[in-house]
């Protein structure tokens, strides 16, 4: 399954609403195990909200390994790749079990050290 991003949302991959649109197009096929190819030709501007919604939330029910196997990007420039990589790295942490008490304890411990 192939999609041209510019034809779907234009030359900017910026906002979450556009990300959600892409997510809704690719989520079902990816869950069915279909290979999805997204062509970013003539898309020049990128920001994290788009990537969080389009791809980050896929990790809710698709593993990172499965996503790497099924989701292919064509003509995504380095800026876009960088945002994508950061967002995916972030999303993995986001969906992992989090112990907020430990997080805040660690932050406070660090704060105490820095005040010494």
């Amino acid at each position: 399954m192939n999609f041209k991003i510019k034809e779907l949302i234009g030359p900017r991959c910026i906002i979450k609403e556009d990300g959600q649109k892409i997510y809704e197009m690719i989520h079902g096929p990816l869950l069915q195990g279909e290979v999805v190819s997204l062509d970013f030709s003539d898309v020049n501007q990128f920001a994290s909200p788009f990537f969080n919604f389009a791809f980050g939330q896929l990790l809710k029910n698709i593993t990172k390994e499965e996503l790497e196997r099924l989701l292919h990007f064509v003509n995504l420039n380095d800026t876009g790749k960088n945002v994508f990589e950061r967002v995916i790295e972030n999303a993995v942490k986001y969906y992992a079990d989090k112990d907020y008490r430990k997080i805040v304890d660690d932050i406070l411990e660090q704060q105490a050290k820095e005040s010494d």
Partner: protein
Amino acid sequence: MAQNVINIPRINDTPSDFEILFKIWSQINGYEEDVRFDFSRCYFLRPNAVAFLGGLTRLIQYRWGTVEFDWATLRDRILTNLCQSGFAKAFGYPSSGWDGNSIPYRHDDTLDMNGIMDYLTDNWIGKGWVRISNRLRDAIAGNMWEIYNNAFEHSGTEIGVFSCGQYFPWYNALLLSVVDFGQGIPSKVRDFFRQNVSEEQADKLKGSTCLQWAFQAGSTTKVGYGEPGGAGLDLLKQFVKLNKGKLEVYSNDGYCIIDKNGERYSNRTISFEGTVFHITLWCDEKQYHLKGEVAPTF
């Protein structure tokens, strides 16, 4: 109620200048304030002051107050700048903006993607004074978007976001200041830990610590069942470091500076309800290298 006359002094963009702005905010941070801004003692106004005063004016008006600008007290050079940037027109002075080295003053009520991205791409970076590749220009604009997005997504601002920039030809730098009068990042972080851990622990968090946490990769005040978030500030930080620029953030009682010397977080004595992102980028292609970026030829 008697009109409160606020004397606006010369305002640059050092931490003590921001302190002046926050003191002005605290003087008129009420409801139904009637304020007159007097510029008799003002010899210089940086874009951070312009964005801040614009936002403050809207905040006062939103709280059923009135604001009068005493335009006659402005020195010609400053008035010219305020006319160029469109600020004067936005607040009732009869003028129209024109091209100079001012970057337009901007007020966004909503997160208008094309409006903001066009402003960043065409009016801030793309006026022809910054000789960089299109790909780098687009990367900068995308990173600046993260600031606007953060403000609208997390601050809860009721009056929108205010920005202003300037190009300083004598040291070849671009400045952009983005201001909101929302909740502030430390307050948001404390609320998050209050809800998810305990009030006692959250109240111990200092402003600097909250900012430091917010700028870490993977930190987000969203809980893990919806769409992920939290990559934006980390991306912005990495970009500023990569390009040897400077980013300062003032939010509540916290302050951080990210520049070629690293990142430092501290606490300030004056707290302000809102957030200012103040970013400086050097207009030197040699300072900028993206992965895979080839220096352009002219």
